[in-house]
């Protein structure tokens, strides 16, 4: 086991409309990168929306009014923390609120639809806190009801609105998520995740690929793809319902999913050398599902239309790394031994482990102490990243080093529109939302709605 490199958050700055920063909070000063999808010009972005409607149950009016005021005018106690939705993101959106009578998705939707065209009004829904592991929860049911009509939505919990400590810091992340769901690109990386000499004639696409099982019916599942460019700019997603007990069927459906995505990628960049880097998730799946994924990659006919294809499997690891007498200290002065985020070790050829929670140093951009951690207490987490050359399409002209391939994982861990205060997420954005995508796809499919046939939601990050 040897140290390969330490990827640093400061080497992966964010790009905004008016400049760059290591800190996502800079969006307030530097403004979002784009108000519309960069890769799908036919989809109108944030500007299509005239208003945002806060929907809440009648008896939660006090909480909803607080949210309404703060979204409109900024956080009452400190406008530097959150100056209001429009001021933070440079938009011009009216913000209103309305109540519904009970926590029933159809009733919530009815209230929403009475207050304007779904094309122009974005729903921000206040719901009780539920365990995200509950497939039948009001959270998933409500999200699915809106999505079935091609409407992405944002949910905030009553618990969050009632807790001043977390509430004040969540207003900006909520706004950033809404902005992304409206079709905007809040920010991306200020560099390519890999170093390619001639980027003008090369297009690099990073694809997340995974399978997730139905929580209550293990014979059903979902295969999904998420697509980003080399700077982490969102492109599109697609998903397919699978019969988990039939390995061949799984392979075929995933191959179909890949074929569809590949033809979309290639049609947009017909003359360029196209490089595809696949991150596939080894989470929650057994060897049969894994074999199905690898067979699908191997058998997808259009795969050889790429100049090269690289395949990385990413899964949770039980390896724990401690930085003996490292520089990070807890609030009480205890030396924690947290390792630096981004520390990457080689276990064997093509197999690496990367620290994704630990300490980091944001340098002079950090407001107080330089050394912070993206974990409060508990053990640091690592991922195992294994390169699967046996299913890759290799081309010497477009050879990418292992270190560069690993940097695609770290770069995608940097991209986070939900917990924007966390400079590095445990998982890359390519595979982070497997459960949300799978469960909503399954729920829609139970109502005979195919997510891939919905016009808008394929091109916005509705699953955040």
């Amino acid at each position, binding site marked *: 086991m040897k140290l390969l490199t330490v990827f640093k958050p400061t080497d992966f700055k964010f790009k905004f409309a008016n400049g760059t920063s290591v800190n996502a909070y800079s969006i307030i000063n530097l403004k979002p990168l784009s108000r519309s999808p960069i890769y799908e010009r036919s989809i109108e972005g944030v500007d299509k929306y005239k208003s945002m409607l806060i929907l809440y149950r009648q008896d939660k009016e006090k909480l909803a009014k607080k949210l309404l005021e703060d979204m409109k005018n900024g956080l009452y106690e400190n406008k530097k923390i959150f100056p209001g939705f429009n001021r933070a993101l440079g938009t011009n959106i009216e913000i209103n609120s309305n109540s519904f009578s009970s926590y029933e998705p159809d009733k919530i939707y009815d209230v929403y639809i009475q207050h304007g065209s779904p094309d122009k009004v974005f729903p921000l829904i206040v719901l009780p806190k539920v365990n995200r592991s509950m497939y039948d929860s009001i959270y998933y049911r409500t999200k699915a009801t809106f999505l079935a009509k091609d409407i992405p939505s944002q949910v905030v919990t009553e618990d969050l609105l009632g807790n001043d400590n977390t509430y004040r810091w969540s207003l900006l992340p909520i706004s950033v998520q809404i902005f992304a769901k409206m079709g905007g690109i809040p920010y991306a990386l200020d560099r390519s995740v890999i170093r390619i000499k001639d980027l003008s004639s090369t297009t690099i696409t990073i694809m997340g690929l995974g399978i997730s099982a139905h929580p209550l019916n293990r014979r059903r599942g979902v295969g999904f793809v998420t697509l980003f460019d080399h700077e982490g700019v969102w492109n599109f997603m697609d998903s397919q319902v699978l019969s988990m007990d039939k390995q061949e069927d799984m392979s075929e459906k995933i191959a179909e999913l890949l074929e569809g995505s590949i033809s979309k990628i290639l049609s947009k960049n017909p003359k360029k050398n196209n490089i595809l880097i696949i991150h596939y998730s080894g989470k929650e799946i057994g060897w049969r599902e894994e074999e199905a994924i690898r067979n699908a990659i191997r058998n997808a006919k259009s795969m050889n239309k790429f100049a090269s294809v690289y395949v990385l499997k990413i899964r949770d690891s039980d390896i724990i790394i401690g930085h003996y007498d490292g520089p990070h200290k807890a609030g009480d002065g205890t030396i924690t031994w*947290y390792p630096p985020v981004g520390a990457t070790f080689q276990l064997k050829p093509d197999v690496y482990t990367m620290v994704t929670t630990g300490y980091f140093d944001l340098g002079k951009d950090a407001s107080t102490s330089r050394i912070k951690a993206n974990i409060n207490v508990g053990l640091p987490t690592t991922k195992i990243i294994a390169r699967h050359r046996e299913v890759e399409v290799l081309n010497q002209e477009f050879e990418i080093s292992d270190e560069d391939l690993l940097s695609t994982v770290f770069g995608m861990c940097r991209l986070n529109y939900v917990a924007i205060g966390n400079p590095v997420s445990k998982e890359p954005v390519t595979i982070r939302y497997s459960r949300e995508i799978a469960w909503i796809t399954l729920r829609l499919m139970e109502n005979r709605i195919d997510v891939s046939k919905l016009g808008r939601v394929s091109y916005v990050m509705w699953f955040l």
Partner: protein
Amino acid sequence: MYIITNFVDVIPSKDAIEAYRISGKANLGVLVGVINKYAEGLIASFLQSDYGGLNAGIYVASIKNNCFHEEDVKAKIKDALEKYREERVARGLPVDESLNVNNIKIQTLSISSKSYVVTNLLNNFLNKVIPKELQCPPRPNERSAICLDIDFLEREFWSKNIIKRDERFVNFCNDYSNLCRDSGSDCSKFFKVVKCITMRFQHVDSEQEEIYLVLRHYYRRLSYLDLKTVIDYTRSKSIDLNNLRGVYVNYRTSKDSTQACKIVSINNSELELECEGRYIPIDISKLDKDSITITPTYSISREFICKYLCKEFDKHKDLNRLYPSEYFSILENDLEIVRRIISEPVIGGVHFSIDRVLKRLEARL
């Protein structure tokens, strides 16, 4: 500056082990499981494709101090296949007809004792060598895990001064005795907090080939939430059975599979489950032990447990909130437990000794 890991050096007594490669027309994916389950004195690992200079096939080696020739190995595999066949027939399950000793070829060879195949043999050996009574109920992604309660640790290790006491665990069990010991109280009927140590061997080939034992410990709550027991308890405390409505359970559909179902109605004599849209009536008086168990994963189930069975059932989570600086010292202390339980594995005539310290690496971070 150095880093500390949860790896432990594994040092073989010789450079190569004596092994046997099995190839042929038999279904090798099934055969490997048959050898590991039924063949005495042998351990096997299936290499699906050529790797590390070795051809695909099943690799078999003797365990402990056994020494076998090719014909002995063949005879043992033949015996194992007969046992497999008998068991399948007795259970009314189909038998894979390719599994015949005449369909396999055996070749003797010696392989590097630090190779990937040997790592897998060591991992399969763990399942054979860990006493059943210490094995934890399996969890996804855990190869082998031992669950040790505080009384066992005290009796077998701490009181004999083999290792230092785990003060963190001791203090917890002093505060929440009902969660750690069989006190007969409400919580102890349904839960026990134990120390869980997971282990697996890892092959590493960054500068040179090495095998490490990867250890991890955490404090885990074992749940005994058999629905029949819960119903009896609920009745004995005069709690309304309707409180069980909405609670999720694991419903055993066969020996090897369960289904997540929701209790939709219940009275003194029967209950109804909703399983993937199907409704299943159950006669409570005919409920077998462990055929239906409550799953604490779901929030409604957790609310029921917290309100009616054991308010403090989640307290063990606090035990796992510690920094690596404290964690590694506890883990290094516990290493001796693992060394004693798995002793010194002997595979293919080679002794694999396990170091007494966690692996440290010089690294410029």
